[in-house]
């Protein structure tokens, strides 16, 4: 059986950032964290008899590093108690600068966590403040070195560009600082002003102007140029890594490989079916309690629904194919023609003859038979949605 990825969601932060629409809360209490981890352990325990092998684990959020050291250790114990881990498993934890210390980092290492994803977002204090981050530029730098000292050899830095008020120069300055620190992996996201966030409120009132698309793309292309110059491989729309440091876990999402998710609101994809978990914290805790007390029947999650699941959808062949393209074309290398044909029993060119023709002509898409690839061109990456509307 092919190894799975496992995502673990931690829905707590010290405070919520101004742009964030993730499932997470600021200003929570330690008791909440403990109760949540108890529930999480019940969900991990639920899979104990499944003989599942993992080759990636991703503890994300929210801010996992907000939790006390021991809670993370207990989660990792829960993981190893329920699943077999491949020898080279990639185990990532997301951490926010300002919420790390030697003690925590050493514990993560001991627990087998070998990849750290640091939410730097910017290395400019004004921008950090504007975004509602709790840390300063120096905090990130300090935490980065501390992690190195603790033996983390695979560190990713998350950066955000196209923040209102940010110039191209300011952005490049942040990026170059992250590069010069030697981060193995860099994610660089164009800021999206999401509904329900403080930024959205400001924008709606006209109090904040979004960065125009021209500037946004200048920032993006300048970033790509600099990353490539320093030896990074641009491997997904918003991700670049030194060779061999591409995120195995995230690549599963873009390659339609199977992954399991535990925790509040997490999603997973197994056996051609997409699932999502309960998003109401109280209900989530109640379900876990029921499972622990034996009131909820434990079924085989591969063929039945786990009790935390609130939504699932068995993909049709059309769903599978369109998601394969929709996720796969996010990768710079695109999709393999032969892999597509092997998976779906027909060539992609037969399924999407018109769409491929149309977007090849306008120079957004490239079909390369010799290299066995269908991929977006540089221009196509900027206009991803324009292309993909014809594939969904």
């Amino acid at each position, binding site marked *: 059986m092919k190894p799975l990825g496992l995502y673990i969601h931690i829905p707590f932060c010290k405070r919520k950032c101004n742009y964030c629409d993730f499932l997470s809360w600021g200003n929570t209490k330690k008791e909440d964290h403990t109760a949540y981890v108890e529930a999480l352990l019940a969900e991990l325990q639920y899979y104990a008899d499944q003989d599942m092998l993992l080759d990636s684990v991703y503890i994300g959020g929210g801010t996992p590093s907000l939790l006390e050291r021991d809670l993370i250790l207990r989660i990792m114990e829960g993981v190893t108690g329920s699943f077999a881990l491949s020898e080279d498993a990639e185990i990532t934890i997301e951490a926010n600068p300002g919420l790390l210390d030697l003690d925590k980092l050493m514990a993560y290492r001991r627990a087998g966590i070998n990849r750290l994803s640091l939410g730097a977002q910017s290395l400019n204090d004004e921008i950090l403040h504007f975004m509602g981050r709790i840390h300063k530029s120096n905090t990130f730098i300090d935490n980065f070195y501390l992690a190195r000292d603790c033996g983390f050899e695979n560190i990713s830095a998350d950066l955000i560009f196209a923040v209102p008020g940010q110039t191209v120069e300011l952005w490049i300055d942040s990026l170059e600082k992250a590069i010069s620190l030697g981060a193995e992996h860099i994610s660089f996201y164009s800021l*999206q002003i999401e509904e329900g966030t403080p930024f959205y409120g400001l924008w709606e009132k006209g109090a904040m102007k979004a960065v125009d698309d021209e500037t*946004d793309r200048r920032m993006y292309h300048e970033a790509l140029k600099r990353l490539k110059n320093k030896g990074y491989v641009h491997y997904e729309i918003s991700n670049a890594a030194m060779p061999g440091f591409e995120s195995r876990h995230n690549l599963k999402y873009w390659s339609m490989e199977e992954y399991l998710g535990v925790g509040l609101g997490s*999603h997973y994809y197994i056996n051609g079916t*997409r699932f999502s978990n309960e998003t109401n914290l109280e209900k989530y805790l109640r379900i876990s309690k029921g499972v622990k007390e034996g009131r909820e029947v434990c079924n085989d999650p591969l063929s039945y629904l786990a009790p935390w699941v609130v939504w699932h959808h068995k993909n049709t062949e059309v769903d599978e194919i369109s*998601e394969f393209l929709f996720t796969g074309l996010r990768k710079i290398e695109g999709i393999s023609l032969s892999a597509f044909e092997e998976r779906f029993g027909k060539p992609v060119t037969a399924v999407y003859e018109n769409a491929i023709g149309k977007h090849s002509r306008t120079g957004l898409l490239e079909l390369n038979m010799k290299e066995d690839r269908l991929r977006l061109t540089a221009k196509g990456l900027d206009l991803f949605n*324009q292309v993909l509307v014809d594939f969904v």
Partner: protein
Amino acid sequence: MDQYQKHIRNFSIIAHIDHGKSTLADRLLETTGLVARRDMKEQFLDNMDIERERGITIKLQTTRLHYRARDGEEYIFNLIDTPGHVDFTYEVSRSLAACEGAVLVVDATQGVEAQTLANVYLALDEDLEIVPVINKIDLTSADPDAAKAEIEDIIGIDASEAPLISAKEGINIEEVLESVIRTVPAPSGDPEGKLKALIFDSYYDNYKGVVIYARIFDGVVKAGDQIRLMNTKKKYEVTEVGVFAPGLTPVEQLRAGEVGYICASIKQVADARVGDTITLDNAPAETALPGYKKLQSMVYCGIYPAEGEKYENVRDALEKLQVNDAAFLFEQETSTALGFGFRCGFLGLLHMEIIVERLEREFDLGIVTTSPSVIYKVVMNDGSELMIQNPSNLPPQTQIHHIEEPLVKANIMIPKEYVGSIMEICQERRGVMTHMEYITENRVTLHYGIPLNEVIYDFFDALKSKTKGYGSLDYEMLRYERSNLVKLDILLNKELVDAFSMIVHESKAYARGRFVCEKLKDIIPMHQFEVPIQAAVGQKVIARETVRALRKDVLAKCYGGDISRKKKLLEKQKEGKKRMRQFGSVEVPQEAFTAVLKYDENK
């Protein structure tokens, strides 16, 4: 006068929109016991949704009421309701011709309005007795004395005895009925004479065929009679006659003085034209009743199936509408931009709006309508004349000697504080004032000669907007006048889109061109390339806007939890694309067609 005629009263109600005509009609029905209050929907007589929403009557509804009067006698009232809009003047005049009197409803808070006045004049033309009624006296702002004074000053009839009523509250409704008995004469006419019956309305019924609404002036008509329509010269056999009680109620015969319906297996309403005279084929009357007119379409537009809508569905719906609307014309046409569709003719703007709304609502059709146009008289260099109502059919400028456009006489009644701003909008629309009269201290009527193509564009919206809804307008055809007109074309990405073409006065071309370009710039989404939007007269570009090229359309993040949600967003984006019209390489949302016609306060 025959005995039975003494107890008949045939009358209409005349009122301005919102002055309570329909509510009063409802109250009359209720008072005479025809419809129990609990069974009534608001405004029983207006039974089309659109009418209900707009609070105006378009289609006539006629009802027979029985009323035991204070003198102890029982009377039959034939209440002939009339449409309340300027586009339907002819229908109104024929309905009035079927009556001996008219109840004039005046809002005690607003006084006499332009449309009321127009209809009162129509009634006076038909020698009708006017029964003034002051409505809405329950409102605190009511000023019945002022309303009476206005009636006396403006119309010149005695209003001292006018009942003060509230149709809404049901106050003094019986007074209206008693006034009608006192003031409106009983019908006369000879039941032994040769049949003369006036068609004042008709509609199509699936089982009975066309149901003709008729007023019998002389003679008698009954089932089995061979009838002849004197103007169209068509002949039919009567299958049923009856009265409106208010549903169709068959009777043995209809006699002189009565109002009722006649069915004769007629296939479409256009065959039983309003204003025509019915007589017996074997004993015809010598002359038809006066006043027959053929309907003339004044406004035209293209109606096309929207993306995803079937041409046949639109055609079927248009056919169904035409069966019931003799004034509505359509024929097939083709547009390069919009494909197969129809050129449609209407009495006026409101008529057009009603048809379009009915297509969308009753028939649930997706349609695209093009800019409304009037009929232009194009005089060619060789002296020949063409009547053109589709801008795309305009011959090349070099072959045209000159163009004439229809001019209407517009009567605009407004509170005096708006005179300045209304004169301004009239002037902007090339109106020439003939005179202005103070009808009361505070109310003014402006008389304008104004090109119809300015009126159909956005004049009515502008008038309503500038006068906070208090302005009213009626217009009638005056004459054709030579004018400096040009065809304004719109080009998207250098390609002409014929559906946007319009004929405008040369002095307006620049402003209109710029307006359309600006509107389209806001509506057309960004493409992968720059889309120039140009307005041109002949080869000359007079306005230009550019929709910038799309530089970025990408989701920054897509991880495990985002896939389903983000895919949905893309599917939504795809749906939006489906609703677009493709013109060459440019995709245009359907609403673009209506948006370029909308009145814009700031322009």
